[in-house]
C-alpha cells in the first residue's frame, strides 16, 4: 500500500525538514499525515461493505513470509487513529517546541514510529506484525530516553517490559507458524482448527495476553507507562495515549475471533482488565502532576478496554471499538492541553494551579470537553462509549454472579474516573484564582489541534448513531458475523444507563468530598511500587549473569582447558564403548625411518616440557618443529616442510628476542601441580592418539584431491598442486589467512604502542666488568660477517622461491618466510640493533600494500565473473597469471608481519618515538622512578600516555632493573 511508503518517505525526510524549518517542520508532516488519513478514510465505504483491501509482496519467499497488508474494519479504525491523531500531534509539535531548538531527531523518530504503528495495524503477516511491534518499542525507548539524562531509567524500564512482551509475541508467532504452516494472519484467524490442538490454543493465548499486557500497561506491567511520561508531551499524547499503547488492544481485538470462547482468555482479560481499571483510577486520584494523572488515567482506561474485550460478545466488541475511538480523542485532548497549560503556566502541579478559567477560557472549555468525555457525561462521545461498556459487562458469561460483579467493578472504576476527571479540570481551571496573573491564553495555532479532538468528541457524541455501521463492521470483522448494534442518541431506560447515572452520581459525591478523599488516600500508600520491584529483578538478573560469567572469566588456562579435555575423554570413552566401524587402510602405512624421527621428536618434547631454562625450552621446541619438518619431507609434503622449518627459525628468533627481557628460568612448579598436569596431559595425549589412529588415513585419495591432481595443470597452468590450491582454487581462504597474519602484525604494533615491553632493555648491561672474552659483540663477529654476506643472498633466494611457486616447491608464504629468516640474520648482524637496516622497512605499510595488492588483483577476477578468479595471459613464451600477483601480495603481507615483530620486539626501544624516550643507557633507573610517580600513569590505558603508563608501582620492585 502506497500509504505506508509515502509515510516512510515522509519519515525519512523529516530530519531534513526539521533542519530547514526548525519546529515548523511539524506543519508539512501534519499535512502528509492528513492526506494519508483522507486516503484511508476514503476506503471507508468499501470497508463498511465488508471488502478487505489487500496487497502483498514476497519478502522471504523461502519461509513463505510476505510483506502483506490488509485493511478491514478493525485495521481501518486503528489506522485512522494513527494517522488522524498523528496529524494533529505533528501540528501541535510545531508550536510546542521552542523556536530555536533542533528537532531533527524527534521528527525522525516520530515519523519512524508512525510508519511502524501503521504497519503494525495493517500487517497481514505475523512476522511483519512482530517486526513493526518491536519497532514501536524501540522508537518509544529513544523518544523517552532522548529527552533528558534523568530519563534513561524510565526509558530502559519501558524498553525491557515492552520488549519482554515482544518476546512473548514472537513465541506466539512461532507457535502459530509452526502449527499452521503459514504466517498469514487472516488465514490463521479464518481457520482456527489449531485451537482444537490440546495445548497450542491456550499457550498462544497466554503469549498474546502477555504481549498485549506489557504493551498496553496492564497490571502487573503497568508501571512503565507513568515512567514514560518523562518524554515530551507530544510523545506522551501520541505514543503513550493514542497509538502505541493501543497496539496491545489491537492485538487482543485481532485475536478475538480465535479466543472469544476460550474461558482462560475471558477470565484473565476481565479480571486483570478491571483490576487495572480500578487500580489506575485510584492512583490517578492521588496524583498532583497533571501529566502523571493523565498517564494513570490511560492505564485505567486501557484496563477497561482489555476487560471488555475479554467479555468476548459481539456487543462487547462494539463497545471496545467505540471506546477505543473515544479514548483516543479525549486522551489526546487532555495530554495536549496538559502541554498547553504547562507552557502557559509553567507548571503541571495542580497544587500550584487553579482559577485559570478566567485567563484561559478557551483552554478551559476544551479541557472541559475532554474531561467530560473521560468522566462519561452526556452528550460527549465518552458517555455513549461508557454506556456501551456497561452493557457489555452485563453480558459476561459464566456463573450468574459474574455479570453483576463485573458490572459493579466497572461502575466503581467509573466513579473513580469521574472523581479524577473532575479533579483534573477543577484544580486547574476552577476554584479560587491563584496569584498567577501572568498566565495568558495560548495562541490559536497551539490550541487548534486539541480543539479538533475535543470538538470531534463532542460532534461524534451528538451524532453517535452514525457510528452504527462502523461498529457493526468491527463486530463482523471480529468473527461474529452480521449483527445489529443499537446506538441511540437518547437512550431508553436500560440497566446500563442506570449504571452510568449511578457512576456520575457517586462520582460527583466523590468530588464534593474531595478533601476527605485526599487525606484518606495519602495516608495509605502501596507497600511497594512496580518500579522498585522491576529494578530489583533487573539488578538480580544482572548479578546472576555476572555470577554465571564468573565461571569462565578466569585468566588461568586450566579453567578453560581442563573441562574441555575432560569432556573429550568422556566422549572418546563413549565412542569406544559404543563401538565404531574401523576401516583398514588400503596399504601399510608405516616406514622404518618414521620411528627414528618419532623417537627424536619425543625426546625433544620431553625436554621442552621439563627444562626450567626458558631459552633451552624454546630451542628444544625449535628442534621439535624442525624434526617435524623433516618428517613432512618423508611424507611427501615438501612445501609444508619448507614452511614448517622457516617458521620454526622465525619463531625461535622472535621468542628469544622477547625472552631476553624475561627471567632466565621459568617459575618453579609444585609437585602436586606437576602430577595433575601430567595426568591430564597423558589422558589428552592418549585420547588424541587413539582418535588419530582410528579415524584418519584409512581411505583412498578423495575425489576432490583426485580432481586437483588431474586437472590442476590444465586449469591453472601450475604444476605444484599445493600452490595452485592456495592461489588458484581457494584464494579466498588464503586471503583470509594472510589477513589474520597481517592483523597479528598490526596487533603487535598497537599492543606495544600502549603497553611497553618490560624487563631489561639492553642486552649489553654496562655494569658488567668488561673483558674481551665476555664482550657479546666481539663474540658475535662470526654471525656479523656471515650475516652481511648471506642476508642479501637469502633475500634473492626468497624472491626466486616466490616466483617459481606455481611450478615447483615454493610460493608466496614460503618465499616470505625465507626472506624473514634473511631479515633476522641481517638484524642480528647489525653492529647495533638500533641501527639495523630492518628498522628502515615500514612494516605496517608493507602489510597494507600486500593485502591491498591481493585484494585488487582479486577484483580483476571479477572481469572473469568472480572475485579472486585468476586471469591468464600468454606473453611471448611466458605464461602469465594474475595468481602470481596475488601470491606477491601474500609475500609482502607476511614479510611485513615479520618486520613488525623484529622491529618492535628486537630493539631496546621501538624506533618510531625516539624523541619521547630518554637515552636508553643512562636513564633506566630514573626513568622508571618517574613512571611510578604520577598517579595518572598508574591506570595504564591512556593511549596518549601510552609508552609511560604500563609499569605499575608494585611491579617496579621485581623488575630486573633493580639489579644495579
Amino acid at each position: 500500500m502506497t500509504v505506508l511508503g509515502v509515510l516512510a518517505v515522509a519519515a525519512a525526510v523529516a530530519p531534513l525538514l526539521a533542519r530547514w524549518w526548525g519546529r515548523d517542520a511539524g506543519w508539512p508532516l501534519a499535512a502528509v499525515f492528513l492526506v494519508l488519513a483522507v486516503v484511508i478514510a476514503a476506503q471507508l465505504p468499501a470497508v463498511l461493505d465488508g471488502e478487505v483491501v489487500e496487497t502483498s509482496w514476497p519478502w522471504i519467499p523461502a519461509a513463505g513470509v510476505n510483506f502483506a497488508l490488509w485493511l478491514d474494519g478493525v485495521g481501518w479504525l486503528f489506522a485512522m487513529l494513527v494517522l488522524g491523531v498523528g496529524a494533529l500531534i505533528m501540528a501541535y509539535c510545531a508550536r510546542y517546541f521552542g523556536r530555536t531548538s533542533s528537532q531533527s531527531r524527534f521528527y525522525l523518530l516520530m515519523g519512524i514510529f508512525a510508519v511502524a504503528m501503521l504497519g503494525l495495524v495493517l500487517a497481514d503477516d505475523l512476522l511483519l506484525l512482530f517486526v513493526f511491534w518491536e519497532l514501536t518499542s524501540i522508537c518509544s525507548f529513544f523518544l523517552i530516553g532522548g529527552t533528558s539524562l534523568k530519563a534513561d531509567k524510565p526509558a530502559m524500564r519501558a524498553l525491557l517490559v515492552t520488549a519482554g512482551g515482544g518476546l512473548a509475541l514472537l513465541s506466539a508467532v512461532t507457535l502459530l507458524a509452526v502449527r499452521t504452516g503459514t504466517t498469514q494472519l487472516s488465514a490463521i484467524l479464518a481457520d482456527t482448527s489449531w485451537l482444537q490442538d490440546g495445548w497450542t490454543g491456550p499457550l498462544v493465548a497466554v503469549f498474546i495476553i502477555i504481549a498485549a499486557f506489557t504493551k498496553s500497561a496492564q497490571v502487573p506491567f503497568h508501571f512503565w507507562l507513568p515512567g514514560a511520561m518523562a518524554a515530551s508531551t507530544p510523545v506522551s499524547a501520541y505514543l503513550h495515549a493514542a497509538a502505541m499503547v493501543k497496539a496491545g488492544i489491537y492485538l487482543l481485538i485481532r485475536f478475538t475471533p480465535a479466543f472469544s470462547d476460550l474461558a482462560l482468555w475471558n477470565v484473565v482479560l476481565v479480571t486483570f482488565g478491571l483490576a487495572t481499571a480500578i487500580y489506575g483510577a485510584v492512583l490517578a486520584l492521588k496524583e498532583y502532576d497533571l501529566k502523571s494523572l493523565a498517564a494513570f488515567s490511560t492505564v485505567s482506561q486501557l484496563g477497561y478496554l482489555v476487560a471488555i474485550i475479554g467479555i468476548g460478545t459481539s456487543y462487547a466488541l462494539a463497545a471496545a471499538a467505540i471506546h477505543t475511538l473515544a479514548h483516543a480523542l479525549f486522551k489526546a485532548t487532555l495530554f495536549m492541553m496538559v502541554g498547553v497549560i504547562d507552557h502557559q503556566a509553567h507548571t503541571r502541579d495542580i497544587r500550584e494551579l487553579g482559577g485559570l478559567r478566567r485567563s484561559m477560557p478557551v483552554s478551559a472549555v476544551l479541557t472541559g470537553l475532554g474531561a467530560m468525555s473521560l468522566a462519561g457525561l452526556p452528550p460527549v462521545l465518552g458517555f455513549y462509549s461508557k454506556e456501551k461498556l456497561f452493557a457489555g459487562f452485563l453480558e459476561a458469561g459464566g456463573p450468574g454472579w459474574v455479570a453483576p460483579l463485573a458490572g459493579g467493578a466497572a461502575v466503581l472504576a467509573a466513579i473513580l474516573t469521574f472523581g479524577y476527571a473532575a479533579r483534573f479540570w477543577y484544580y486547574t481551571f476552577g476554584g479560587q484564582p491563584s496569584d498567577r496573573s501572568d498566565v495568558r491564553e495560548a495562541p490559536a495555532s497551539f490550541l487548534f489541534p486539541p480543539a479538533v479532538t475535543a470538538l470531534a468528541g463532542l460532534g461524534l457524541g451528538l451524532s453517535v448513531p452514525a457510528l452504527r455501521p462502523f461498529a457493526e463492521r468491527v463486530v463482523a470483522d471480529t468473527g461474529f458475523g452480521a449483527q445489529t448494534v443499537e446506538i441511540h442518541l437518547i437512550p431508553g431506560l436500560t440497566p446500563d444507563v442506570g449504571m452510568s447515572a449511578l457512576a456520575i452520581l457517586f462520582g460527583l459525591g466523590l468530588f464534593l468530598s474531595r478533601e476527605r478523599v485526599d487525606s484518606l488516600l495519602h495516608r495509605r500508600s502501596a507497600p511497594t511500587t512496580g518500579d522498585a520491584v522491576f529494578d530489583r529483578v533487573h539488578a538480580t538478573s544482572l548479578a546472576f549473569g555476572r555470577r554465571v560469567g564468573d565461571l569462565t572469566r578466569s585468566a588461568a588456562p586450566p579453567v578453560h582447558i581442563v573441562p574441555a579435555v575432560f569432556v573429550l575423554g568422556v566422549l572418546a570413552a563413549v565412542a569406544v564403548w559404543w563401538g565404531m566401524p574401523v576401516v583398514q587402510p588400503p596399504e601399510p602405512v608405516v616406514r622404518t625411518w618414521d620411528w627414528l624421527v618419532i623417537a627424536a621428536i619425543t625426546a625433544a618434547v620431553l625436554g621442552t616440557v621439563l627444562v626450567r631454562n626458558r631459552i633451552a625450552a624454546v630451542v628444544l621446541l625449535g628442534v621439535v618443529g624442525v624434526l617435524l619438518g623433516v618428517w613432512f619431507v618423508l611424507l611427501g609434503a615438501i612445501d609444508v616442510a619448507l614452511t614448517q622449518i622457516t617458521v620454526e627459525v622465525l619463531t625461535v628468533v622472535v621468542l628469544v628476542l622477547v625472552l631476553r627481557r624475561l627471567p632466565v628460568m621459568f617459575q618453579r612448579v609444585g609437585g602436586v601441580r606437576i602430577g595433575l598436569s601430567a595426568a591430564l596431559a597423558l589422558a589428552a595425549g592418549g585420547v588424541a592418539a587413539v582418535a588419530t589412529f582410528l579415524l584418519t588415513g584409512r581411505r583412498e585419495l578423495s575425489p576432490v584431491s583426485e580432481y586437483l591432481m588431474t586437472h590442476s595443470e590444465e586449469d591453472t597452468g601450475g604444476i605444484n598442486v599445493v600452490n595452485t590450491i592456495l592461489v588458484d582454487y581457494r584464494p579466498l581462504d588464503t586471503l583470509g589467512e594472510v589477513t589474520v597474519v597481517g592483523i597479528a602484525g598490526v596487533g603487535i604494533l598497537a599492543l606495544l604502542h600502549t603497553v611497553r615491553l618490560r624487563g631489561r632493555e639492553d642486552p649489553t648491561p654496562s655494569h658488567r666488568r668488561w673483558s674481551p672474552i665476555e664482550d657479546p659483540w666481539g663474540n658475535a663477529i662470526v654471525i656479523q660477517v656471515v650475516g652481511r654476506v648471506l642476508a642479501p643472498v637469502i633475500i634473492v633466494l626468497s624472491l626466486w622461491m616466490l616466483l617459481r611457486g606455481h611450478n615447483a616447491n615454493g610460493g608466496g608464504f614460503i618465499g616470505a618466510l625465507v626472506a624473514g629468516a634473511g631479515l633476522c640474520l641481517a638484524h642480528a648482524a647489525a653492529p647495533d640493533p638500533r641501527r639495523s637496516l630492518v628498522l628502515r622497512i615500514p612494516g605496517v605499510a608493507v602489510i597494507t600494500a600486500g593485502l591491498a595488492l591481493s585484494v585488487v588483483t582479486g577484483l580483476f577476477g571479477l572481469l572473469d565473473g568472480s572475485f579472486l578468479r585468476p586471469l591468464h595471459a600468454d606473453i611471448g613464451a611466458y605464461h602469465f597469471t594474475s595468481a602470481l600477483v596475488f601470491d606477491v601480495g601474500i609475500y609482502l603481507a607476511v614479510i611485513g608481519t615479520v618486520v613488525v615483530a623484529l622491529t618492535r620486539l628486537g630493539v631496546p626501544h621501538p624506533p618510531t618515538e625516539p624523541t619521547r624516550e630518554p637515552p636508553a643507557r643512562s636513564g633506566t633507573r630514573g626513568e622508571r622512578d618517574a613512571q611510578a610517580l604520577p598517579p595518572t600513569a598508574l591506570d595504564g590505558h591512556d593511549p596518549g600516555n601510552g609508552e609511560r603508563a604500563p609499569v605499575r608501582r608494585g611491579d617496579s620492585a621485581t623488575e630486573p632493573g633493580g639489579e644495579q
Partner: protein
Amino acid sequence: MTAAVLVGVLVAGAVFLIVQRGLVRIALGLIMLGHAANLVLLAAGGMYRREAPLIDQIAAVQTAADPLPQAFVLTAIVIAFGVTVYLVALAGAGTGDDTEESQ
C-alpha cells in the same frame, strides 16, 4: 600408527605446558598443539601415499600424497606463526605472572 603416536606425544606435551602458569609456557604449548593439529590434518589425507604432489614428477595420481591437507597445513602453520608472535609480544609486554619469580 606413526602419526597417531606422534600426535599423542605432541598433545600430551602441549596440554602439560598450557596448564602451567606463565604466558611463555602457554605460548610454547600452543605452538606444540598447532603441530599436533597439523599432523592430524596430514594424517587425514593418508600416510601411505608419499610422493610430493608435483604433477610432472609423480609416477601415478594414486601414489602421490594428498595435496589438499598439505595446502591447509601450510596456511595453518603461517597463521600459527602470526598468533605465536602476538602471544609472545603479550608475554613480553604484560605485567603478567611470568616475572613474579625472578632468577
